[in-house]
């Protein structure tokens, strides 16, 4: 039996080794960069986003090619908050071109009963799972593959309607039930990703950061369940929760996930100080979306600022999905900043 350290030494130098070291709490050779690239990859391949997100071959090829083009350190398997919602029965509207799908019907609000059993076989989830299998098979030895799950509050909002976050803050049992149901969907998907051998699971929740402390506490059991499933498969869980204020972020840092990705001034200035409150937690320093839409110089500078604030357990990420219209040159500049900082 070979020691894990030896295996690690053999893999060192690859992006995979870098990310695995980070997830294990070791000090990687440089700060890894994990952007949430999905529809941006479709744009690079000149594919309509809707077509790519429904086809395992197109999705895996586009994500692989994007990683090969820029050389970032992990591939996320998808980034589409409508994915689970569609599998749960929400109707979607796809805009022209590269836009994201919008949910146009709320099954829980309409009184429909949701059957979570077999949800991973519905909608576009089979295509995403097949794409994930391919990503792991083709690139998994060299590059970390990260499964993305829509967070329980975000999914519950899409199932029950826009008013769900405030209802959850107000202690509504129906809202809590919707979040628990969404959490069970997340567990199912997390298990499927775990079976495929992803390195980490990201819980992307664009509603969590807007909750008050009470709402966050109500969502915590669902988060914990997903994190427990991921842990069973030796995959780390990262929480991606934009729109957080400092207080909410500090609270989220104490949630039962392995790390938090956060953007804004808090990430640069206050997060390092908040770190002692959450020892051992991974901290994703997130580039704000505006930096990805600006000039290459702006992208490079923004990355440089965040990298300067990086400490133990830090990695560079994007605050949400890399927008399809992001600057290609800016992204190259960003990668140059990451490599320059780490010397690799």
């Amino acid at each position, binding site marked *: 039996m070979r020691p894990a350290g030896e295996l690690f030494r053999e893999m060192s130098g690859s992006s995979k080794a870098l990310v695995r070291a980070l997830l294990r709490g070791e000090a990687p050779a440089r700060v890894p960069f994990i952007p949430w690239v999905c529809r941006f990859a479709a744009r690079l391949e000149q594919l309509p986003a809707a077509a790519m997100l429904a086809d395992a*071959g197109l999705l895996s090829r586009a994500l692989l*090619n994007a990683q090969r083009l820029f050389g970032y350190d992990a591939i996320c398997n998808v980034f589409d908050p409508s994915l689970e919602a569609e599998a749960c029965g929400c109707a979607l509207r796809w805009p022209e071109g590269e836009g994201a799908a919008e949910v146009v019907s709320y099954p829980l609000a309409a009184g429909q009963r949701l059957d979570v059993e077999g949800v991973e076989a519905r909608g576009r989830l089979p295509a995403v799972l097949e794409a994930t299998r*391919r990503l792991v098979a083709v690139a998994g030895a060299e590059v970390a593959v990260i499964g993305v799950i829509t967070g329980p509050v975000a999914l519950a909002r899409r199932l029950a309607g826009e008013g769900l976050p405030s209802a959850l803050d107000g202690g509504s049992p129906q809202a809590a039930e919707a979040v628990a149901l969404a959490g069970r969907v997340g567990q199912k998907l997390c298990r499927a990703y775990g079976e495929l051998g992803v390195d980490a699971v990201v819980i992307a929740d664009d509603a969590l950061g807007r909750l008050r402390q009470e709402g966050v506490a109500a969502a915590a059991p669902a988060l914990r369940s997903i994190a427990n499933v991921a842990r069973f498969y030796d995959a780390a869980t990262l929480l991606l929760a934009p729109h957080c204020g400092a207080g909410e972020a500090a609270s989220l840092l104490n949630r039962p996930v392995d790390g938090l990705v956060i953007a804004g001034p808090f990430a640069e200035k206050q997060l390092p100080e908040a770190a002692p409150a959450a020892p051992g937690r991974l901290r994703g320093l997130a580039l704000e979306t505006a930096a990805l839409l600006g000039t290459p110089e702006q992208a490079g500078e923004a990355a440089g600022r965040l990298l300067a604030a990086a400490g133990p357990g830090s990695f560079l990420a994007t605050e949400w999905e890399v927008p399809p219209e992001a600057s290609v040159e800016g992204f190259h500049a960003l990668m140059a900043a990451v490599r320059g900082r780490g010397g690799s």
Partner: protein
Amino acid sequence: MPFTIDIDTGGTFTDGFVRGDGRTVLVKVDTTPHDLTVCFLNCIEEAARSLGLPSAEHLLAQTSTLRLSTTIGTNALLQRSGPKLGLLVTRGAGENGYAPEGVANPAIGFLISQEMIATIDEELGESGASLRPPAGAEVLVAVKGLLDRGARRIVVSLARSPLNPAHEQACRELVLEDYPAHYLGTVPLLLSTEVSSQLDDRCRTNAALIDAYIHQAMAHYLYKADEDVRRRRYRWPLLVVHANGGARRVAKTKAIDTLDSGPAAGLLGAAHLARLYGLKDVLTVDVGGTSSDLGFIARGEPYFTDYKEVHGVPVRERVIETESIGGGGSSIAWIDAATGALRVGPQSAGALPGPACYGLGGDRPTVTDAWVTLGYIDPEYFLGGRRRLDAARARAVIEKQIAGPLALSVEEAAEAIVREVTLRTAESVREFLAARGAEAEGVTMFAFGGAGGLSCGGVARAAGIGKVYFFPFGAHFCAFGSSCADVVHTYSAAADLQLAPDAADAVRGFDAAVAALADDAYFDMLGEGFEREKVTLSLEVVAASPQATEAVVVPWLQLTLGGEAGVRALLEEYRRRAGLKRAPAAVAVRELRLRAAGPIADPQLPKDEPHGKDPAAARKGVRPVYWRGKLLEAPLYDQERLRCGNVVQGLALVESPHTTILVPPGYRYTVDEHLNAVMEEA
């Protein structure tokens, strides 16, 4: 009539060439890198659909030959996804992979790390006599050390072992005693002499390391592919195309034999076409994104080489030769700061980020950017419209980095880039031909590759080649070439024979060694389904003499020497091949190589009826292009709609989803009965 299926799995696409029932079908599917058997089966299913058959099973049940060429071995090397190897070598000679003193063996650090090389004490004499056999305890300690350091496959390569493989075999027996095959902890052991009979220890060791490194991936894929088609009612063995131009069933294929089998198959196809058109010498030029690959057909046969480098690792194997030169579509144009002159390459933008017009962040002008700027490539129809190009970006980088500094217009700068890459490529072509004893005037060019249509006409003119052939199935050419492959087994034996007319013992040794090789060959070919009378054997003798600096390969049609007369004839043939004035009194025979072939190749091309000279039915429109400083209207033709007898006069463009062909003013492009076309001066 039964079908034959030929499939070539490339990095992006998997191509099929299927023939039978009086029909020929070309198919192209996406390669599925996560599992290459998926695209292999997709290709067969697509072919069945094109033939109007209900399923792949129906096609396979009626198929008599299924051949596959693949890049999976190359991919395993590129991605460095092979297992951790251990290497056992002779102490005092093999520590650096048998590299000469002061020279590094590129295999170390690439296929194997220095710490994974273990040494043992053993010695063979110059003629192969065992002077010091390996000691059992030392072998076991060395192997245990390699296993402890994580070896998953061990190569044993001992000095001079082709002269006497007994020491290598002894190592295997010792290891098997301690780690028998039924133990879970057993580790596959590969002997260098099982892979190669090369006396050059470094090249033989490298061949064994490469074979061991890619074996697992190849075995997994090929056995699964074989099994998949058998489950779908195919009744014969799946044949794998080898880089030596033959095909063999999976069970008789060494992993290393499959490296570069796609380009080798392409050369087989070119050789078939050269014979079909009665062409003596043919230069094949495959122009891709990053480089141009050259091949040569002499008197209807592909040119072989005994030396090749596999990603920089030297090996000695008899393979069909292809040579890579610079000058692909992604070659970067730049200004030499020292001289102020325009240069193109050798740097390339590759496929990623690619030329600036791809819009993927490439910020250097490339040849493709120049072609787009000159109007030769339609930005909306690149790859049949699968990728739209950014013509404005192409202009911008040429303007900023070339036109501005040289005080030229953008179009003049683009033409200068094309001219420069054309001249450089033509220079390489002339050197390539000269090295093979050919002169451009007597050579015909076959053009392939996505960029071949825009590049090859100019290169041929600059190099002095009069005719260039283009093929509508150029995008499937390797699959077509595979259909020209017979079942071939090759055998070689290292030898140490001093052949002279009066050396009766050496003659007997020669004849006995060849007879042993022939027995093996007939036995294996019977296993492939060929009776003795159907098998063609051909022998090559690798011989050396003090008069020649390098060993010479002498084809020897007879399989025996017989006696003095035979030896004299061999010495005379050696003289001719070595370019000597007088035959030497004796030669040292280093190696005997036997090739056994069983005929299965039956390539046939579609035939068209004459449709007259006028190509108007294929005309798509006109496109403005820059030609020698002027903006001209070039008629545009659809390659797939041109018919037998059609003649396209230059200036014109002929377009397909896979390529664009530029017919310059003063040239004509004539389509023949097979729908291939020749471009020559009008």
